[in-house]
């Protein structure tokens, strides 16, 4: 496959940045998207040019490091897939592919396609944890959890924090991430004591980090590589309402 790539190049946080066109040849359709970028980077390195910086780690779709806007789609055209698990067979020979970093005030560009997602850590620091030491995995019968709750909590816990939800959101909101991190704890017994302070703390941290507000547009759930459902945000809303109306959110 021969492709034309238009990639966002930005030397550092202060640089203005621009789209630069690179032709790439002899790409195998069985390569992953990141392997295709590796091929480009090898060529750039041999030519003495600066390779394209992009985040990646496990390349198995479970670490949440990789992530880029591919033709205006977070993680590319295939649903339920991270950029590292996306294969070049999803594209056609001769195609022009636009590659951009996540765009959000809360995710400043470090270099090229690498963004700083510290803002997600700030949301977690706002309450996305259980304070009491819970020890190692408890014996399964010690604290019974309803199957439906366990399933829903697990569904939320599948979030890898890649940031695609923010990148795709027309409002630049990180509410799907926040909701996933709230509900994975609020549905389980260990999360109950801090349930309502948690939701207030995390939503406040979310807003302070410079994310936009959720308008239930539903973009996030479409691009989420882990398929976190939109109604997760409803669970957050319900906890938030309970916390504010009953003042149970004040510790």
């Amino acid at each position, binding site marked *: 496959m021969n492709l034309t790539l*238009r990639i966002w190049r930005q030397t550092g946080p202060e640089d203005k940045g621009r789209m630069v066109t690179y032709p790439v040849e002899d790409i195998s359709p069985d390569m992953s998207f990141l392997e295709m970028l590796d091929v480009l980077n090898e060529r750039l390195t041999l030519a003495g040019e600066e390779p394209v910086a992009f985040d990646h780690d496990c390349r198995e779709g479970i670490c949440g490091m990789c992530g880029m806007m591919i033709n*205006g789609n977070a993680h590319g055209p295939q649903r339920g897939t991270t950029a590292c698990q996306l294969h070049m067979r999803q594209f056609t020979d001769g195609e022009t592919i636009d590659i951009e970093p996540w765009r*959000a005030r809360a995710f400043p560009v470090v270099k090229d396609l690498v963004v700083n997602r510290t803002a997600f850590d700030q949301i977690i620091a706002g309450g996305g944890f259980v304070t009491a030491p819970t020890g190692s995995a408890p014996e399964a019968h010690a604290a019974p959890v309803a199957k439906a709750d366990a399933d829903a909590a697990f569904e939320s816990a599948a979030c890898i924090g890649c940031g695609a939800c923010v990148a795709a959101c027309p409002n630049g909101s990180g509410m799907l991430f926040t909701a996933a991190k709230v509900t994975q704890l609020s549905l389980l017994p260990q999360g109950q004591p801090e349930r309502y302070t948690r939701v207030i703390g995390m939503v406040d941290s979310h807003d302070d980090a410079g994310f936009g507000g959720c308008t*239930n547009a*539903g*973009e996030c759930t479409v691009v989420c590589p882990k398929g976190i459902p*939109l*109604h997760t945000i409803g669970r957050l809303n319900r906890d938030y309402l309970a916390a504010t109306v009953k003042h149970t959110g004040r510790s």
Partner: protein
Amino acid sequence: MAVTGLVLVLFLVAHMLGNLKIFTGAEDFDHYAHWLRDLGTPLLPYGWYLWLQRGALLVALAGHFWAATVLALRARSARPVRYAHRKKVQGSYAARTMRWGGVIIALFVIYHILDLTTGHLNPVGDPTRPQANVVADFAPERWYVTLFYTLAVAALGFHLRHGAYSALRSLGQQTPQGERRARVLALLFAVALSVGYLVVPFAVLLGLVS
């Protein structure tokens, strides 16, 4: 957004049901309009109920605008650098037209009040004969009024479709079945209300009401 929106939705339902009185005859319609002013008497002086309702609606509207403006400004500041290549939003058409749709509806409401409440833009403009005002308004030769009305109601329908669904979500709808139900409910509600509003001008246009 959700709470102020629901207040406005309650008004929309009442307003639509009132409009449908046009099918039970001119006298009925005019009597209904008069009754609205008479409502609450003798506890309230004549016409006060309507002013109270207008006041409440204005508060809800102001809150709705305020929340929408805050959300829009936050969205703008949350993405200072735009995408060079951005696919059309994959979510619903209704969701991505909420803001401009809302502006269209607001402009229409201003026109609508000048037309059928104060009568300034109405060919009859007689507050004592509301039915005659409506019939004159949607006469075939004033097709552009009917067209604008239709477009505004369509915008309202889209606004309600996402608005009603989104309001239920904001108020804590949280299960997959609930989401499906909320979507269907919002769609049915939006269609029902749009049809309810549109039958009046089209009945006049087709000469079913005169």
